[in-house]
């Protein structure tokens, strides 16, 4: 099997040698081998390629010299004696389609044929080469969502298909977007001239971000049928953030999904994609209706099942808040939710409709419906603060920034990646190191003297940084201030895509932390509205959605 790494790789030549080929794009079980060979700051996809090759899946390698990470991985596989690879070649990829570039690439292709003939003893067969061109492009007629950007992988593609049931998913990520037109040449044409055409065809594909002229990429998302874009980036890949930063202003819903190319837990990914699904559907005018049979009762319930605590809000028919309950979630989401319901004292028979949200939303059996916390926080925020344009929600596990349009619908959102920096968990860990309770943690940083910086982006490193700051005799006040600032900066980075921060509201547990709020106000240069009970906003939104679903159903009936 020949492994290749890029859509520009001349795999049809391999077919001309009767060889089989496969794109190297597997996720890695772990990075044990590569972490000994490569610096940690290399692109995760490239590291996964190294793992895959080292495991011995490929006898031959055909690489395009795409980027620094892939070049260095090629260096490393060339040194790896255990991979079983006996032929490897890395071709230069020109960055434009000018005549000299096409000719130069033709020369490299001819040279490659020569090398492979010498290596294998097989003669290149033009007929096989020509017959291997297949028009693989899938025609899509209806609405679809597009995967765009750098690499996607199996986990991402499967999760997207699951979340977008019934809608076509078009994978247009860098190497999966290989698209050669049917190739015309006579088999007795001189090889030179065939390869010139082939070179031109390869280089004229829809350009990837490595090409000089990327205008052709606009065609990828031009279609009216494209409902939204799931933009895939890879940790430590730089190419695609450049495009993503400009996509945000195109009016089409887009969400960024960053992968580290491990079989990452799809929990958070599912939440984000479902949130995105809800956004896309609402944007195209659909309601979030689901029919659940007849109901009576006078209360609408919203339950927010988070990683540490579960909140319940009950509304009466006039949408007044009649109950708010908070309990620890415990080991099982369902048990926590049940406990919250018991504490609320509401009878089963009095419930008209229940909506669940939060991490455990799917495991609450008595809920009629579940919606992601993104949609719920937006809904709750609009209820509490009618002018709201954006919501920052920092909870225990994650932090998000949600922008709302004039109707209070989600127009975009960003969530932190897997790492815990910038979340409530981060502050809790640091409080432990500093031997503070959360109450004092909230206040003590306000009276700092020295403007300390915690520069590490990663929780683990930040911990050691804090430890050394303590060792250097810095005051706890100043350190806490530094931590607050680092949470604020992380959040500021998340809110980079938000257009309107004029009426900003904060929800989630960390909104109770005065130090963080004051730093955020400073960093974002705006006042932040904090509701009386910020941690109930998600449950409130869920209850409002419950009421809406109920009324819709009545209306339809």
């Amino acid at each position, binding site marked *: 099997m020949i492994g290749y790494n890029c859509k520009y790789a001349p795999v049809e030549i391999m077919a001309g040698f009767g060889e089989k080929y496969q794109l190297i794009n597997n996720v890695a079980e772990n990075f044990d081998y590569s972490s000994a060979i490569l610096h940690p700051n290399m*692109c995760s996809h490239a590291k996964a390629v190294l793992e895959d090759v080292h495991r011995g899946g490929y006898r031959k390698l055909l690489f395009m010299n795409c980027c620094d990470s892939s070049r*260095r991985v090629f260096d*490393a596989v060339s*040194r790896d004696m255990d991979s079983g690879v006996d032929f490897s070649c890395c071709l230069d990829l020109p960055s434009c389609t000018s005549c000299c570039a096409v000719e130069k690439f033709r020369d490299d292709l001819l040279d490659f044929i020569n090398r492979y003939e010498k290596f294998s003893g097989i003669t290149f067969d033009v007929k096989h080469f020509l017959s291997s061109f297949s028009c693989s492009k899938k025609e899509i007629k209806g609405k679809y969502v597009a995967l765009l950007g750098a690499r996607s992988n199996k986990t991402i593609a499967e999760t997207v298909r699951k979340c977008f049931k019934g809608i076509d998913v078009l994978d247009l990520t860098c190497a999966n977007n290989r698209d050669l037109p049917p190739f015309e040449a006579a088999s007795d044409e001189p090889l030179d001239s065939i390869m010139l055409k082939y070179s031109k065809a390869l280089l004229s594909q829809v350009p990837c971000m490595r090409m000089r002229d990327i205008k052709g990429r606009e065609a990828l998302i031009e279609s009216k049928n494209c409902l939204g874009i799931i933009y895939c980036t890879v940790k430590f890949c730089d*190419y695609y953030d*450049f495009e993503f930063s400009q996509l945000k202003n195109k009016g089409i819903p887009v969400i960024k999904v960053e992968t580290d190319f491990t079989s990452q837990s799809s929990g958070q990914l599912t939440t984000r994609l479902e949130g995105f699904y809800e956004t896309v559907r609402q944007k195209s005018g659909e309601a979030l209706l689901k029919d659940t049979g007849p109901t009576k009762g006078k209360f609408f319930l919203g339950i927010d099942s988070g990683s540490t605590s579960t909140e319940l809000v009950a509304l009466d028919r006039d949408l007044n808040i009649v109950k708010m309950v908070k309990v620890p979630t415990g080991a099982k989401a369902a048990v926590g939710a049940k406990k919250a319901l018991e504490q609320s004292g509401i009878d089963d028979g009095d419930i008209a409709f229940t909506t669940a949200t939060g991490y455990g939303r799917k495991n609450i059996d008595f809920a009629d419906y579940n919606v992601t916390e993104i949609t719920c926080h937006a809904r709750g925020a609009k209820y509490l603060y009618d002018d709201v344009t954006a919501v920052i929600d920092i909870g225990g596990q994650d932090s998000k920034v949600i922008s709302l349009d004039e109707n209070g619908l989600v127009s975009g959102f960003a969530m932190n990646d897997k790492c815990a920096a910038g979340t409530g968990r981060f502050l809790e860990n640091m409080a432990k190191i500093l031997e503070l309770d959360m109450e004092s943690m909230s206040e003590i940083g306000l009276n700092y003297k020295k403007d300390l910086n915690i520069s590490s*982006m990663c929780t683990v490193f930040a911990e050691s*940084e804090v430890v050394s700051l303590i060792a250097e005799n810095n005051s706890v006040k100043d350190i806490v201030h530094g931590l607050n600032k680092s949470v604020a900066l992380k959040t500021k*980075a998340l809110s*980079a895509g938000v257009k309107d921060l004029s009426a900003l509201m904060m929800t989630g547990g960390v909104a109770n932390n005065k130090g963080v709020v004051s730093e955020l106000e400073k960093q974002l240069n705006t006042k932040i509205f904090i509701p009386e009970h910020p941690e109930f906003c998600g449950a409130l939104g869920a209850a409002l959605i419950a009421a809406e679903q109920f009324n819709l159903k009545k209306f339809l009936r």
Partner: protein
Amino acid sequence: MNKAIEIFGNHIYRLARTSPRKALKELSFVYKTAGLKCRYFPSRSLLPARQYMQWAAADSAVRPLIQPDRSAIVSIYLPCEVLHAMGIYQMFPEALACYLAAGGSEKFFIEKAEEAGMPGTLCSYHKSFIGLAESGVLPKPRFIINTSLACDVNHLSFRRVADYYNIPHFMIDVPSRYSPENLDYVKDQLHRMVDFIEENSDFRLNEDKLAEAAGRSRRTLDNFRKILELRKDIYLSDEMTSHMLSVFATHVMLGSKEAEKYSEDMVQQLSRCPRGRKGVRLFWVHTLPYWQDGLRSLLNFTDRCEIVGCDMVLDALDADTGQEDPFTYMADRLLRNTSNGAGENRINAVLKYARELDADGIVWFCHWGCKQTAGSSSAAKKILEEKGFPTLILDGDGCSRQNANDGQAVTRMEAFLELLEKRK
């Protein structure tokens, strides 16, 4: 950070947001005065040639800021003889970012770039550069020319900034290996670069002037070869900045009168230095975090150790195959650059120069976001240590305080020095 720098940095942080033009004026003024001070009030601790170069580099950094319509943005590896011959000034990310960092003023621009969606993992030189442009501080030049040599960022930031300014952009594609065909390919593009400039401006190339510039480049690199030879058994009290300046002299400034004078003076002044060695001799790979306090106090002007050479300064030293035609000479330099192609090319060059300079140990500096350097670091350590050169992989950042952990860097560096001292 020195108090004055800290105050200036904070001042620029505020000013750049509200009045970018004013920020530009103040930055240019400060660079210019700093340069002049080196020229007219030299300090005792540095060789006069080094101080001359500080002035020359500052001057060539400020000129394009004052006359942007005579200027181009270039990448550090672009052979600039053509531009020198035409009288076009150059701005380039590394110099812009280095001067920002020296004045403690990089933060605003890096934040600006990140706010615009640039990845946190991008090389900080280029983040500073994008931030400078998009904050309105960097004035709009005539055009942008860059090569694809050495790293990915070349494919990204120049295109983005050209779009931002809406100015013409030309890129030279450098294949990863030397071959006669590839030489023609690059040469051809260099010719087209001249057409590009002439089509987009009134600047015209005078072949004689180009030949003069190429002659200066040759002589400059010859001098650097002599410096290498001399440095072998000389101790020099020096600072990290000097090596960064030499990087400028053998790259964008190569072919200028100033770079030639600098190299000549260095040869003369070094020949007068007494022979002998003091302390540990380090060979440095890649850029240097010359502004970082902890490392400065450890490495600058001390008898304990010295940096005897930096691989970036020397990356095209052996590229001259005696080609008369300036275009062939420039193309040759690109293709044979030690940073081109496989990581082994660079590792072998480092080995060669570390030997020639009689170094005791090697510091492989992984500048934040520089995947081509970081990507070779583990292999380099293995290979270089097998050949008898203890190697320290030092993570840091050449121009951003955000990504540099001074305390950790000092601990590692000091431990490395102790290790080398014990071996001696």
